[in-house]
């Protein structure tokens, strides 16, 4: 009998598909995209081939083929047999065509030169005719777009017939407008100063928020509410849960109201003669204070809940006995309560480290990394690189490489944290066997 197996597979498949498609595939694709130079300008699907000024520059600098680039750029206007035939069809005066035949083989680098020569013909073609004629002799491949390599090579061959295979490959590579595979993202990450800055910012952010609020203040909340009458304890726990249940956008708005230059702090301190200003963004230090406060007020509630429930598990007689023995409140906290919190503290530390390292929504909404990038943490820098910035050129490939760093750290830390908290019985065998 394997009905349990069949039913199991049937019931788990939909969840497995959704998780794989939108969770595991993105993990893999982050790694894949990290090795591309995808950006707004290359697009994310395929590309075309175009001999643009950039492509010529690349041929000169990168492939060391200045002569090829030179000739490609000079492929301009040429008086030739196919052009003359087309002129006849286009209804140009036969006398002009005959006269042009005398110039066969002449080339011009630019449209201006070609048109000057045509204007100076003895038959004096009209302005409209000059345009028509020059169009027919246009052999330039500069800036034209080709959909395939073959079309590009055919066009190149029409102006430069004798190119080597290596030169063909160089032209193809240099003129491609789509994205390509590259390891340049990681070289760039290692070399630019912004990397180090976001790393330091991230460490400051995680260290301060974690120790001061997610652990420190959460413990204060849990222990003080533990000693309070239950009504007061419920009120304070409720108040400190508000930041967690409020959506981030509205929660950060409240902080902006507090810190804005017409906000509460400015008005209140104005009574004491202190200039009104935007307290959140007027200096890097202030911005950090607010970033840590904003994240810390949310983070404290998780520790508070977990520590509180751990404290509820302390046998009451133990506390009464310690009081009868004359223990002070501090002794009680240090010798009875703290040992009880050892595992919860480890758990919250692991959990919050991971979530602080990667979360950026509250910073995005409050300081947006400012002033001048002083609160730009790694995750926010990733967002700014790949998804939203003022310049408008979104670098998906580089952003994916930055995200990959976080993904690797995330996988590593979550595996480590599971080893730490892996209870064997969670994976116990089912009791009904079929």
């Amino acid at each position, binding site marked *: 009998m394997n009905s349990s197996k069949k039913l199991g597979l049937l019931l788990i498949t939909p969840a497995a598909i959704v998780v794989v498609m939108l*969770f595991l595939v993105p993990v893999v694709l982050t790694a894949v*995209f990290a090795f591309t130079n995808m950006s707004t300008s290359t697009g994310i699907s395929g590309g075309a081939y175009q001999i643009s000024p950039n492509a010529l520059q690349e041929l000169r600098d990168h492939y060391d083929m200045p002569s090829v680039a030179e000739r490609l750029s000079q492929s301009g206007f040429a008086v030739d047999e196919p052009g003359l035939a087309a002129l006849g069809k286009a209804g140009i005066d036969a006398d002009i065509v005959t006269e042009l035949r005398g110039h066969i083989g002449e080339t011009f680098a630019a449209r201006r030169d070609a048109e000057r020569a045509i204007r100076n013909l003895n038959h004096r073609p009209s302005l409209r005719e000059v345009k028509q004629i020059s169009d027919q002799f246009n052999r330039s491949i500069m800036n034209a777009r080709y959909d395939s390599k073959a079309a590009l090579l055919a066009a190149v061959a029409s102006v430069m017939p004798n190119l080597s295979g290596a030169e063909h490959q160089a032209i193809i590579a240099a003129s491609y407008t789509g994205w390509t595979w590259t390891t340049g993202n990681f070289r760039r990450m290692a070399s630019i100063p912004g990397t180090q800055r976001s790393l330091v910012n991230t460490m400051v952010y995680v260290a301060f928020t974690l120790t001061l609020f997610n652990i420190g203040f959460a413990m204060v909340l849990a222990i003080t509410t533990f000693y*309070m009458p239950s009504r007061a304890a419920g009120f304070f726990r409720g*108040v400190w849960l508000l930041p967690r249940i409020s959506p981030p956008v509205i929660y950060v*708005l409240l902080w902006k109201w507090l810190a804005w230059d017409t906000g509460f702090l400015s008005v209140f301190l104005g009574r004491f003669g202190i200039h009104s200003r935007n307290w959140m963004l007027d200096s890097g230090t202030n911005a950090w204070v607010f970033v840590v406060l904003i994240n810390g007020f949310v983070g404290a509630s998780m520790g508070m*809940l977990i520590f509180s429930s751990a404290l509820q598990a302390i046998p009451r007689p133990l506390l009464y006995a310690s009081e009868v023995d004359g223990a002070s409140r501090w002794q009680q906290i240090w010798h009875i309560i703290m040992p009880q919190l050892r595992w919860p503290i480890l758990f919250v530390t692991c959990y919050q480290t991971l979530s602080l390292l990667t*979360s*950026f929504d509250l910073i995005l909404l409050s300081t947006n990394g400012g002033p001048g990038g002083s609160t730009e943490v790694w995750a926010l820098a990733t967002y700014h690189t790949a998804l939203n910035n003022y310049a408008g050129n979104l670098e998906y490939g580089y952003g994916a490489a930055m995200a990959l760093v976080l993904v690797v750290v995330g*996988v590593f830390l979550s595996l480590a944290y599971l080893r730490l908290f892996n209870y064997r019985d969670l994976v116990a065998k089912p009791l009904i066997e079929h």
Partner: protein
Amino acid sequence: MTSNFRAWPVVLALSIVSAPLVLMYVYLLVDTVTSTAPGSLIPYEFTLRHWTFLWTPVPGRPDIWRVALNTLVFATASSAIVLSLSSTAGYVLSRLNVPFRRFFLAGVMVLHAFPSVTLIVAIFLVLQMVGLYNSLAGVILVKAALDMPLGIWIMKGFYDTVPWEIEMAGIQDGASRFTVWRRLVLPQVRPALLALGLFAFLSGWSEFILPQVLAPDNRVQVLSVYLAGLIADDNNFDMALFKSVGVFYVVPVILLFLFFQKHLMNIYGGGTKG
């Protein structure tokens, strides 16, 4: 509790520390229905004009009811997907003998701990490629998928507490495993279903980054993106308007939380992201 300690110094200290938070939320409510002169902290009149956005759309912004409807659809649909798929998958992982069960379990555990927001770049590109960018369907699927490991994990935990005897009895009486699940086990975990459904709904209602990145268009805008756009617009600075929209946005959350606090605490206490 303890009789020889006085509580009031602690209450006083905590009141002072909590004051900024209380102040922020009190002023959030007060400022939406009053006017305050610049440079003052005391309102001088009662007014409802900050709420006109309910019937006249803010210039250049979509209709608030349309946005609210989008938010409702987004939160409800992602919550429904999370609920239905994790109630089945959680049961399988808790009770059924499927191949690779340990592998699935380990995978769910890792994904549950894994910070999903790091995947946003890849997800953005995937949605662009498959044409689900700027659509509610796309962002609903993504939200549901990212919440799923947590949902499966929670449901598995609740199924684990259901006594095996109930199922054994059902099997003895000749019911199939599916019927046992549907008729006997599922009713046992109804509180868990309620809690997870609400949690997923609230998480969808509050979500900002995903819709902001994956569906920013006016047609499919949700309240968080709408409000963030309003605040970010330097040309129309109106704190009272922001707060009124904010209250409109946050009231359902607070109400649901007050009514279902006990159920939700099961999940919030268990260590979710944040």
